[in-house]
């Protein structure tokens, strides 16, 4: 803990417990998504209009994605899949509004990937039975058991670190860029107003926040579906 580096700032304390901006931005996302959900589904009409079109497109996209990757009978996972997609997607692009993305915090990404891991193990055991599921770790050869276990444990780690790394890299590069642009302005024009910071970073924002961000949210969600449905088959 310190005042340097790229870690999330502490917003406030509850007693001795530090609450970081990761948590407060997550609260903001929860609030916005909750408000959106309630407002958009308040008055559903048979002929969709306005917000309802967006909501229906969103929900049917998530439902279809779940159906395609996990099968018709696992449609109950759609809300979880949709939660991951929406939360990670919005977290990744919220940097555009000046907030620190919650997914740029290892705690968030590991929380999500460990949730996925737990669900994978739980539904694998539930669907196959503890014996059959455990036997899967002895395939194709019994002596591969340690490797299988390591492979299984590697999934949440790689899942969490991939997302975290992508987003935090974006944060670091963008803040370095802003710093450099400010320095350039001072050096070239001799004024303290960081003029070059306007406009120039937009291209990188589009890449890191929009493209990489949405891509990573999609990758995380897809892998989650693959892991869970893979364990159940």
């Amino acid at each position, binding site marked *: 803990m310190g005042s*340097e580096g790229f*870690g999330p700032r502490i917003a406030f304390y509850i007693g001795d417990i530090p609450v970081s901006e990761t948590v407060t931005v997550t609260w903001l996302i929860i609030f916005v*998504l909750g408000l959106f959900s309630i407002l958009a589904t308040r008055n559903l009409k048979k002929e969709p209009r306005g917000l309802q079109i967006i909501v229906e497109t969103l929900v049917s996209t998530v439902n279809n994605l779940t159906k395609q990757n996990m099968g018709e009978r696992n449609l109950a996972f759609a809300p979880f899949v949709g939660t991951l997609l929406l939360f990670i997607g919005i977290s990744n692009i919220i940097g555009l509004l000046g907030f620190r993305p919650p997914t740029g915090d290892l705690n968030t990404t590991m929380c999500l990937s460990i949730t996925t891991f737990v669900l994978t193990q739980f539904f694998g055991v539930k669907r196959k039975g503890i014996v059959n599921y455990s036997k899967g770790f002895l395939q194709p050869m019994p002596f591969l058991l340690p490797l299988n276990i390591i492979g299984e444990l590697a999934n949440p780690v790689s899942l969490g670190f991939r997302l975290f790394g992508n987003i935090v890299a974006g944060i670091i590069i963008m803040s370095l860029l802003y710093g450099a642009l400010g320095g350039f302005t001072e050096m070239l024009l001799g004024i303290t107003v960081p003029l070059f910071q306007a406009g120039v970073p937009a291209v990188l924002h589009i890449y890191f926040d929009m493209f990489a961000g949405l891509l990573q949210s999609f990758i995380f969600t897809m892998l989650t579906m693959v892991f869970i449905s893979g364990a159940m088959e």
Partner: protein
Amino acid sequence: MSMDMVTASLRLGLVELNITFVFQLINTLILYLILKKFLFGPVTAFMQKRENDIKMQIQDAKNLDAEAQKLREAYEAKLALADDEGKDVVKKYTQRAENRAFEIVKTAEAEVDTMKLNAHRELERERVKAVNELKGQISELTILAASKVVEKDLNEADHKELINKFISEVGETQWQN
């Protein structure tokens, strides 16, 4: 946000697991529950219901269509029948009317014939009557003339018959002209 504030506010480590993990676990659960209850649940249910409704409506429409088709066929058959019946009726009544007209004409003709015959008979009777009258007068005249000639009053009753006989025998052919 000024540089001072950024450096002043404490930061948690960049790569470390800490209490935030617990917060995020709870946050994720809350977000999941909210989205499930308010977004995915109702919208999926709504869309499912609408899909079923539309399916049902299409089925209903199909049923109605089939029913309408059946009714149309039935009505067409009925119409064809009615058409035939109408034609029959028209034919029948035309036939009847023709017959009636024929009858009327025939009756009229017969009547005309009768009337002609009657007229003819009447004429004949009139003629005979006229002839007889003439005959009577002639006989009277003859008797008058004869009595004048013989200066003697002939017995009218006695001779009238004689004279009539004579006239009818002799004069018949003459009156025929």
